[in-house]
């Protein structure tokens, strides 16, 4: 058998050459062709055969992918390791230089075996047909609202109650601020009233600007504005959220 292999090696590359998936594929082809036990690879023979293939590829002007060369050097490295007498410490266990290669080959073989199983299984399961999903109307899953007028009224009342409570809270805060702040709300109200007496529309941001006064002062200014409006001495207008606030004097009975 072995003689036959040796004899046919030089012609072997004519059978199959360019459709190897990679170096492992070529190596595997050689192993299977020579019926070698994967766990006991005769590195010398395999390396020679592998190199023959590479030389043949070269002769035929085929581009040899670098991966094939990496494998070639790995094989030659292992071969040289096996040939050279190893000088090493007595008690150190000797490692087979082929071990790493064998591990990789075994892993590759597993993948190759599963690949052929997949191909086999695919043949059966591509005969199977599936149905396209039905187009289900979305309204089938919509929740229908269940509202009565009395429920609406309850909600509204609750809303208003909350609003009212909040209002009370603010007035509490205002009392606290009046008692604590150095900046007096009374003073601010008086200031604002003086300005309003001139009968001109005031821009809030121009009178109370953080550039020229403290945060507390601006806040108190705002409270003063509200207070003035509450007293009925001015109307406040704000067209959009976070927009400019205009304070417009309102003519009172005295003025």
């Amino acid at each position, binding site marked *: 058998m072995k003689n036959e292999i040796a004899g046919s090696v030089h012609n072997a590359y004519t059978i199959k050459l360019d459709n190897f*998936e*990679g*170096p*492992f594929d070529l190596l595997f082809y050689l192993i299977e062709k020579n019926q070698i036990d994967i*766990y*006991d690879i005769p590195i010398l023979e395999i390396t020679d055969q592998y190199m023959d293939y590479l030389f043949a590829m070269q002769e035929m002007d085929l581009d040899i*992918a670098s*991966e094939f060369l*990496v*494998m070639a050097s790995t094989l030659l490295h292992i071969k040289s390791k*096996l040939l050279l007498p190893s000088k090493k410490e007595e008690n150190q266990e*000797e490692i*087979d230089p*082929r*071990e790493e290669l*064998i*591990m*990789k080959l*075994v*892993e*590759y073989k*597993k*993948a*190759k*075996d*599963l*690949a*052929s*199983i*997949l*191909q086999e*299984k*695919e043949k*059966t*399961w*591509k*005969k*199977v*047909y*599936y*149905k*396209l*999903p*039905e187009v*289900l109307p979305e309204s089938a899953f919509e929740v229908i609202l269940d509202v009565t007028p009395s429920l609406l009224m309850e909600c509204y009342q609750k809303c208003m109650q909350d609003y009212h409570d909040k209002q009370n809270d603010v007035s509490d805060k205002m009392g606290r601020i009046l008692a604590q702040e150095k900046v007096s709300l009374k003073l601010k109200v008086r200031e604002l009233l003086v300005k309003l007496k001139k009968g001109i529309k005031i821009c809030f941001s121009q009178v109370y600007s953080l550039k020229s006064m403290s945060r507390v002062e601006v806040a108190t200014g705002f409270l003063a504005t509200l207070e003035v409006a509450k007293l009925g001495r001015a109307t406040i207008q704000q067209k959009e959220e976070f927009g400019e606030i205009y304070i417009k004097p309102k003519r009172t009975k005295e003025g």
Partner: protein
Amino acid sequence: MDNLRDIECAIEAVLFAAGDSVSIEKISEIVNQDKKTTISILSGMEMKYKNSSRGIMLRQLGSNYQLCTKPEYDEHIACLGTSRKRQGLSQAAYEVLSIIAYHQPVTRAHIEQIRGVNSDNVISTLAEKNLVYEIGRQEGPGRPKLYGTTEEFLRVFGFNSISDIPQIGMNEIKMVMNDIPVD
């Protein structure tokens, strides 16, 4: 819905209308049974379809279920003229798919290491065919992408779940690795 027959009928109707695979959670929600009961009902149905004279069968795909025709009747269906031909995969694609199936979640680098060849294009093709997908990224330098197989993979190759993939000669390999002859 307490009657087993009723439940089975409802599941059949739901799966038929769905066409696509339906998750166990969804089915158990629809028939108002707990997950464990639903699974046993479904495996019962699977056997019934298999053993009785039906043209359709029930398939488990991971944690989903789907109705399909039995493979034996593909020639009859082909007569309808709706037969579609899926373009086959290349040898390399089967190899890469096998590696991903075994080692998932797995990085490109690992696949390349096992095959000894760059496999980027093949992986892209497999992802295009919806057989593999990017599960996530590995912690560590470069955070490389991790690949795994899809439900479509189970569907195309007739597996019930990932654990259904045959483990080839694991024990044999381990055993032999221990007594590699030392030259």
